[in-house]
């Protein structure tokens, strides 16, 4: 962190990061302060940039699949799904029913992981360093055990394939998910009980960082951030991709869109995810886990382009692919929710204290692997 005084000697210019615990990775904010008040904030990133898109354009379609795990490394399975969905649109591949159910189960488990970890991180930003994160990670670890059992890897799953999934569910896995889902509700009750009325959380998060809903839509904000401001836009309901039209669940909406709403909306979303998980486990049919007609070797989609998107835990995760009929994509573009959700960071922070800026950044929920790509 470096500090310098500006010419007028009134404003203090602070370079916050890139190595700073509250910045969630290598992320820097160039802040100008009038006393404690933020008058200018410019985010600086690119420290993790490895040009994911260029590398993917030089590789075959399938060999980018493990690389998508590394975008948002908290939720690899939703990244897999978004990419598989875009390629399936590009090539017109059907997905068997069982595979769709498996994808829904994995995506909702990933949403639980993301939102649980978020609770730990945001409380860490508010000063509860350690214990909240430890309990959040205890629950996350249980889900990661399930992922390891199914995919062989805790985090870097590389599990989806074009037209389905890589392997079938192992024996007893479904029952283990059932046990986990039953145990998750009480954990959420406990965590919520500690948080909802917590005085520090209330005073730090209420009326902090809200913007009008139209500004958020215009700024491209998606996911829990947008719904916390009362805009009912969830791609699971809008596009009804996969088989989301078969499940009964609601889209929780916030009222003010401040940091408090953003925290609480994630609690409510987790409860809806549990609902979806219960239904998916009950309805899971027998059948193929991958479309037997989908080609793996020598896969060449026809000439054309496609944009596929899903509701990732952080917002709209999209892939725009262009095929020129060769085994490599001509253009491979990731629409990263973390990156675009940062567009309005300055607007949210202006006029507030520097300490609020840290919490607002935490409430956006970014992963730098996806921001920098």
């Amino acid at each position, binding site marked *: 962190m470096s500090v310098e005084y500006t010419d007028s000697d009134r404003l203090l210019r602070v370079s916050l990061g890139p190595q700073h615990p509250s910045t969630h990775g290598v992320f820097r904010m160039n802040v100008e302060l009038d006393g404690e008040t933020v008058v200018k904030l410019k985010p600086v990133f*690119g420290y993790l940039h490895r040009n994911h898109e*260029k590398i993917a354009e030089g590789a075959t379609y399938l060999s980018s699949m493990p690389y998508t795990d590394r975008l948002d490394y908290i939720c690899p399975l939703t990244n897999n799904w978004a990419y598989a969905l875009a390629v399936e649109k590009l090539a017109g591949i059907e997905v068997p029913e069982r595979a769709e159910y498996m994808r829904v189960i994995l995506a909702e488990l990933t949403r639980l992981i993301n939102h649980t970890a978020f609770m730990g991180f945001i409380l860490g930003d508010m000063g509860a360093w350690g214990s909240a994160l430890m309990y959040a990670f205890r629950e996350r670890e249980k889900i990661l055990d399930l992922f390891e059992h199914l995919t062989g890897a805790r985090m870097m799953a590389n599990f989806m394939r074009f037209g389905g999934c890589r392997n079938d569910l192992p024996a007893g896995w479904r029952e283990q998910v059932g046990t986990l889902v039953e145990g998750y509700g009480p954990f959420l009750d406990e965590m919520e009980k500690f948080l909802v009325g917590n005085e520090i959380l209330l005073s730090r998060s209420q009326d902090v960082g809200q913007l009008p809903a139209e500004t958020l839509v215009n700024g491209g904000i998606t996911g829990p951030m947008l719904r916390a401001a009362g805009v009912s836009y969830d791609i699971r309901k809008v596009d009804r991709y996969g088989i989301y039209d078969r499940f009964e669940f609601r889209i929780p909406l916030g009222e003010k869109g401040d940091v408090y709403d953003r925290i609480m909306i994630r609690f409510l979303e987790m409860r809806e995810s549990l609902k979806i998980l219960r239904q998916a486990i009950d309805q899971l049919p027998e059948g193929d886990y991958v479309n037997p007609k989908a080609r793996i070797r020598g896969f060449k989609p026809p000439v054309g382009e496609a944009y596929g998107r899903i509701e990732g835990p952080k917002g709209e995760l999209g892939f725009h692919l262009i095929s020129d009929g060769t085994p490599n994509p001509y253009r491979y573009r990731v629409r990263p929710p973390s990156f675009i959700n940062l567009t309005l960071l300055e607007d949210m922070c202006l006029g507030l204290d520097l300490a609020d800026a840290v919490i607002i950044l935490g409430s956006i929920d970014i992963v730098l692997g996806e921001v920098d790509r």
Partner: protein
Amino acid sequence: MSVDATDIQTSIRAALPDVEIFLRTNPGPSGQHSLLVGNGDLLGVMRFVRDELAFDFLSNVTGIDWPDPAKADAVASDGALRSPHGFLEVVYHLFSTTKRTGPLVLRARTVDRAENCTIPSVVSVFRSAEFQEREIYDLFGIVFTGHPDLRRILMWDEFADHPMRKDYVAPDDYEYEPTPHGEVLERAQTHYPQTAG
């Protein structure tokens, strides 16, 4: 719910008769056809689809490098505005949060890949384009006229090239950084004549 690009084209033509707008058919199975808009009319069309057709959410902005125009015509054919020597293209994916429709795919093209590499910035209509246009400027070298803060965003400021272009050549050694060490060592040699030869 997907949108019919032909209908959108008709309603834009009806309201803004002088606009250059062409349908580009997507031959692939996704069925996402696009509309190619002339550079001079881009902002007007963006404003029209936002205010009149309720496409209030610009989700994705992408750059594409087409050194070979024949490939661009294969992916999206039946249009005009062809450029003989290759061009760069920007693709916009718009959605409507109120009508819940999309994507509406718009495209805009630069004249060539060298001097006339400009496209008007749409940040004044859609704020979400701010960082994405900076990224395209950084990686493809398209200059967005009217952008409030057009700087590199992912590569470092001193970097000179645009790595997402198809003819970009990666350096042999990514870790190499020019430092004064080589020159300093050479000058130091003059103080030690016994080791110089």
